């Protein structure tokens, strides 16, 4: 066995082959710089040794009990009788609760109301928890819940978006914003078209399922360790269900085994359930969902049914668009208001719509309440517009890329339908750079040639952009806090309100603190998010984790530096300008001190070595009543060019090549950022290709395990996959000119869907855009191919009749 090289223990690494750097230094300087900025994930060594602890890995105390829930078998049904006698008698069962046993509020909604911890008189969806059991083992709890005798009075469940629209059954009021007289323009235009698209949802399938561990504290409170993106909400809701003040609850999150939005609001219900038992029984309670429970009981990405009508010129320039976006929210609002808002804010994607009316419906259905998922409605808002751009291209018989380039935001065509200006010129140059590096034009010619000569296989190509707004659209969430302590040996403890779910947030904030301090990052210890360290935090979501927490951490560092420098200024009688910290050395005029030495000195002179930092995003604000404003601090941009090959007889396909160029501003950590881009793309590709959520006619989820819900595996990787960073700084003041990266790359996968449709369109000689479902499963591609083929046959028949 080989020794762990020095490099690993020092945590500085060579650059992975994919990483590109935005800097212009000499080779030596560059490699040193790259080692620093490509710092490995703070948990990497633990990850590869199985030593990184997730909630379920924490040592169990002997008396820890385990929770399972009894699930509703009917949606929108009255519970006529509930007999739990056999459940109580089951082996290992210690406690059983129903809604009435919840000491405080049974409502665990994140923003509005209606999400109940346990069902009351009526069930909201199939799988909803009706009662819960605490037992001596996980297996005992799972076995016991099956013994309940429940009688229902069934009522017809409402399961489809179209039905909800027809019945005007919404969880929240419809919103819209508009510019110009869209209807008039469309009616008077020479060219117009309409389309619709059903976009299915997506199961998060975080590999670590939902889980919480609650322990009673001596003051009648609870310490809860949760796999959650939002510890503050866990804290708030646990306090609410227990009926205690928030200060009696501490929520802690060290890391998640994936979140992707699924643990933004819905992790809290597990914490609440565990906390209710922990308080009743005064012993530790663990609630880990089985995979099937997780898939049935927690919300997913929203299905959407989108309709669009657009007017355009003979050259394909868009004049107006009327876009209706209807999101399937499920039984309650959860986070759906923001999700449908974000779909609306992204219905323009990267394109200037001179006149636009964008309407968002929040449809209620008797299904599990859908929730945040990477992109938060943005992907669904964008997809139908990208379909619309392809439709226009086919209608005017031009290459879709030409139509996209013609309509993309640019100088003087830079205002979004909601009034925010696009202040930087990134989109067009980025698209053109990718057009060149991916050899789009040359490959388009080759594909035409290939498709002309091959009947059974068709190739498709698409280059699609992404423009994604960065900031929470709920303004108050755009704030963050951090807490930094420097100890007398010079070691630094870092805490902030953000949570680590694999996106590399902790690694990046550690780098930011090291850089801002001027010290080696090995001095810095990152620590679990805890509500008693940094309070009132926002969820780690909206891609804004690094932006918000990084700026808060910088604020905290600067407060401590201020203390240190003020001390040095007076103690050594040196002007402030001549005091600084660089490479772990404190410079005070002509004197130099090792960092630890200087810290010890400062402590002895009674200097505060701890600070909290705070940040609020500037410039933002959106007025819903006028539909105008600036919801986003800035936009992250990107583009992807995907090529596919499809079997015309079966619809089977392969993704042969993907080129991505993505804008993360000046990257804080290119290796982490490129990982996010690769992973986000693959996740988006799953959403639009193989991941098909299926429900039966009564609203029961049929795709409730990995056996019947297929997320991408290594074999689904594009054969040729090239990811590069676009070289540009963020024009807004953000953490070292970087940009957010978490969500935007997911939408790069829209290029795959468009490429599949392009391959099908080739069968109709690109005269129509055949309808393609989302996800574009093999069956869906087959049907799309058939539609194109039938069109072509009808054209041939017609031309035959004419001659």
């Amino acid at each position, binding site marked *: 066995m080989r020794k762990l090289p020095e490099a690993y223990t020092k945590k500085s690494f060579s650059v992975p082959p*994919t990483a590109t750097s935005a800097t212009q230094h000499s080779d030596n300087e560059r490699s040193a710089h790259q080692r620093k900025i490509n710092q490995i994930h703070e948990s990497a060594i633990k990850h590869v040794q*199985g030593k990184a602890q997730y909630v379920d890995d924490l*040592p169990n105390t002997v008396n820890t009990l385990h929770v399972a829930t009894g699930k509703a078998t009917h949606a929108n049904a009255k519970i006529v009788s509930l007999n739990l006698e056999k459940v109580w008698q089951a082996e290992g069962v210690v406690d059983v609760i129903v809604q009435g046993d919840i000491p405080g509020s049974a409502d665990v909604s994140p923003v509005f109301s209606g999400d109940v911890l346990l069902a009351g008189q009526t069930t909201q969806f199939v799988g909803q928890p009706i009662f819960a059991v605490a037992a001596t083992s996980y297996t005992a709890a799972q076995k016991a819940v099956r013994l309940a005798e429940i009688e229902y009075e069934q009522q017809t469940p409402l399961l489809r978006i179209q039905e909800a629209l027809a019945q005007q059954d919404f969880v929240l009021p419809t919103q819209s914003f508009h510019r110009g007289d869209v209807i008039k323009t469309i009616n008077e235009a020479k060219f117009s078209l309409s389309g619709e698209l059903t976009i299915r949802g997506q199961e998060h399938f975080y590999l670590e399922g939902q889980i919480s561990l609650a322990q009673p504290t001596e003051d009648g409170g609870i310490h809860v360790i949760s796999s959650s993106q939002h510890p503050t909400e866990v804290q708030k809701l646990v306090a609410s269900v227990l009926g205690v003040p928030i200060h009696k609850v501490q929520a802690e999150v060290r890391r998640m085994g994936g979140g992707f939005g699924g643990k933004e609001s819905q992790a809290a219900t597990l914490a609440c359930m565990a906390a209710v038992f922990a308080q009743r029984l005064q012993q530790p309670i663990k609630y880990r969902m089985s995979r099937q429970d997780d898939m049935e009981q927690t919300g997913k990405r929203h299905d959407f049914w989108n309709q669009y009508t657009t007017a355009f010129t003979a050259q394909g320039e868009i004049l107006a668009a009327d876009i209706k976006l209807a999101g399937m929210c499920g039984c309650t609002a959860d986070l759906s208001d923001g999700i449908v808002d974000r779909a609306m804010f992204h219905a323009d994607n990267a394109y200037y719509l001179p006149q636009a009316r964008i309407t968002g419906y929040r449809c209620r259905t008797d299904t599990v309440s859908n929730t945040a998922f990477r992109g938060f409605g943005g992907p669904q808002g964008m997809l139908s517009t990208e379909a619309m751009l392809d439709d226009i291209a086919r209608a005017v018989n031009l290459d879709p890329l030409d139509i996209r380039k013609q309509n993309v935001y640019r100088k003087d065509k830079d205002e979004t339908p909601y009034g925010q200006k696009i202040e930087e010129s990134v989109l067009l140059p980025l698209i053109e750079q990718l057009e060149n590096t991916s050899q789009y034009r040359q490959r388009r010619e080759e594909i035409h040639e290939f498709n002309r000569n091959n009947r059974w296989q068709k190739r498709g190509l698409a280059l699609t952009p992404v423009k994604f707004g960065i900031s929470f659209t709920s303004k108050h969430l755009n704030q963050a806090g951090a807490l930094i302590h420097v100890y007398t040996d010079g070691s630094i403890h870092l805490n902030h309100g953000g949570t680590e779910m694999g996106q590399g947030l902790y690694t990046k904030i550690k780098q930011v603190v090291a850089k801002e301090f001027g010290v080696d990052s090995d001095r810095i210890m990152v620590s679990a998010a805890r509500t008693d360290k940094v309070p009132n935090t926002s969820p780690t979501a909206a891609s804004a984790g690094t932006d918000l927490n990084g700026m808060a951490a910088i604020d905290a560092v600067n407060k401590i530096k201020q203390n240190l420098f003020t001390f040095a200024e007076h103690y050594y009688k040196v002007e402030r300008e001549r005091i600084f910290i660089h490479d772990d050395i404190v410079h005070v005029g002509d004197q130099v001190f090792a960092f630890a030495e200087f810290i010890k000195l400062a402590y002895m002179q009674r200097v505060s070595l701890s600070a909290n930092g705070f940040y609020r995003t500037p410039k933002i604000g959106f007025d819903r009543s006028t539909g105008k404003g600036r919801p986003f601090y800035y936009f992250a941009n990107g583009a992807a060019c995907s090529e596919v090959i499809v079997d015309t007889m079966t619809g089977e396909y392969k993704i042969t090549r993907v080129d991505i160029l993505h804008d993360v501003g000046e990257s804080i950590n290119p290796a982490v950022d490129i990982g996010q881009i690769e992973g986000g793309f693959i*996740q988006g590709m799953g959403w639009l290709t193989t991941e098909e959520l299926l429900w039966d006619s009564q609203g029961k989820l049929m795709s409730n395990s990995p056996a019947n819900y297929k997320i*991408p*595996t*290594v074999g689904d990787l594009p054969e040729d996959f090239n990811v590069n960073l676009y070289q540009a700084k963020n024009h807004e003041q953000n953490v070292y000119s970087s940009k957010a990266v978490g969500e935007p790359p997911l939408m790069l996968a829209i290029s795959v869907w468009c490429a599949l449709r392009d391959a099908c369109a080739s069968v109709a000689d690109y005269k129509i855009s055949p309808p393609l479902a989302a996800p574009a499963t093999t069956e869906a591609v087959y049907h799309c191919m058939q539609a194109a083929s039938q069109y072509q046959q009808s054209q041939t028949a017609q031309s035959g009749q004419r001659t």
Partner: protein
Amino acid sequence: MLTLNVNGQVVTIEASSDVSLLWVLREHLGLTGTKYGCGAGMCGACTVHIDGVANFACQIMAADAANTTITTIEGLSEDGTHPLQLAWIEEQTPQCGYCQSGQIMRAAALIADNPKPTREEIIDGMSANICRCGSYPRIVRAIERAVKEDHHG
């Protein structure tokens, strides 16, 4: 009573006959590097070696693993220096990290069986393990790196 050979140690535990190896490893032996992902042998988070072959620990009754040699991520190397573990760090493969023990164990069995796998063989061999973060490009590269470096080193 059940006697198992895990990571070179013979351990005797009390476990009921219907418990899977996964839970014996995690709850009786405290070897929590092996993860629960789906409980159905379809995600690979629980991958361990049984007599050197990659297996889903959630699909094997602990009793059936008696008289075998079991290796978990904790036993793959003494100090985390298996060529795959080093390559995994070098390629910055893990994101959330949850599936990675299973991925590395799957890869270790693959290269033990086939020390110079082609890219196709790597993809084929790794297909049973899911990573929701999409670290697949780096999993492939890390295996290629480990194979290359181990060969030269």
